[in-house]
């Protein structure tokens, strides 16, 4: 008898499993899967929807209206572009360097324990040691940014570029951590991601810059690598708990 995995049963409870009838029949005869299924159902019940507070529309409109500028044709041009042309990359680079140096100098005092290496390609679980939970956020953010890069046409908006700037600072720290712990494969992937971020953060956006970035830095391949790192991260967390 083939048992269903946790993932398949979660999909079943969220009505995302196409084999709903098969799963349902199996649960009637398999105690092991029925227990797991009940545990998932209980979790979903515990996290059922709470009531949502109603916002005060009038008050929110008054607050918002004060921030709205009148949109005229001249406002539609990207006025920030000329400013950014040389000044922002220089300021950004200097700030990034300063913050990274500060963070690295703090981290240098931490214990340099050698963790077991996590392979890039494979079918984990690949480590039993606890990992930094913040890396999961970083990898999620990296995935979203690379997806944006892979799917955008024309220039990236300012929010995405600001996000790239923030990620650049964090990424340097994770590259350093990965190298320190002997995770050379992970460090290499994050270094490649860092190159993408540096380009986004420093190069002035042009209509073709995203296309060039995708081709030169193989951002699709990098996205796949980041997803594999995420998978390694999930599996190592699952085993360690």
């Amino acid at each position, binding site marked *: 008898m083939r048992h269903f995995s946790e993932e398949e049963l979660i999909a079943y409870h*969220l009505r995302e499993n196409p084999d709903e009838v098969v799963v349902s029949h199996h649960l009637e005869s398999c105690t092991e899967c029925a227990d797991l299924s009940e545990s998932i159902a209980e979790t979903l*019940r515990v*996290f059922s929807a709470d009531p*949502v*507070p109603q*916002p005060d529309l009038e008050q929110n409109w008054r607050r918002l209206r004060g921030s709205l500028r*009148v949109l*005229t044709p001249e406002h539609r041009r990207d006025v920030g572009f000329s400013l950014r042309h040389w000044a922002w990359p220089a300021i950004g680079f200097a700030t990034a360097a300063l913050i990274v140096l500060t963070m690295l100098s703090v981290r240098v005092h931490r214990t340099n324990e050698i963790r077991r290496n996590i392979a890039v390609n494979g079918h984990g679980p690949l480590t039993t040691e606890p990992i930094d939970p913040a890396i999961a956020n970083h990898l999620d*953010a990296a995935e979203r940014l690379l997806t*944006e890069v892979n799917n955008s046409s024309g220039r990236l908006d300012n929010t995405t570029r600001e996000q790239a700037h923030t990620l650049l600072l964090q990424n340097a720290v994770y590259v350093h951590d990965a190298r320190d712990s002997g995770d050379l494969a992970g460090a290499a992937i994050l270094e490649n991601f860092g190159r993408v971020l540096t380009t986004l953060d420093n190069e002035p956006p042009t209509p073709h810059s995203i296309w060039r970035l995708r081709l030169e830095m193989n951002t699709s391949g990098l996205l796949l690598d980041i997803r594999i790192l995420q998978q390694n991260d999930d599996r190592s967390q699952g085993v360690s708990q």
Partner: protein
Amino acid sequence: MDKAEAEAIRDVLAGDRDAYRVLMDRHFCSVSRIAFRITGNEADAEEAAQEAFLRAYNKLPNFRQDSTFSTWIMRIAMNTAINLVERRMRDFSYYAPRIADEPSATEHTVRIADTQAGPEASLLHREAISLRQAAMAELTPMERTAFTLRHMEDVPMAEIAAALNVTSNSAKQAVFRAVSKLRRSLTPIAGGLR
């Protein structure tokens, strides 16, 4: 797209700020609701909804009207709320009041009330809420968003994926990871990992 909304957008682009009220009246509640699910508290939800509407207003000249305003604003709202949660995670002391003997609004201090030491049921209720909050805090912003939208708001996976700008499979995996993590977080109490 709805005719009234298309007209409102045209008026805003022609310089009439008040025309934006039409769009806000129609969509602010649903945007605020989604933001509440993602941020988990009313103050942040309101801030995210406000920011989303402001960003949408500023981006309105670039809005391609081949999709609906509602889909577009939801997508902006989700990203804004996720970014806010990420910011809060970096600066977790942002809203934290300090405890003092006397509460003070200017000093942002509070006094812990001892008059509510009530019955056992109240204690258990508070404990359950705190366990749920702790479990949710373990999720990444993307996992939290995907999970709450799918499970609590019943948003189809394809819409979540489009809003998060990831593939449908990635959104699905984020939901699965979230449920799995929440289940493990509940291990100490009934219904957790058995």
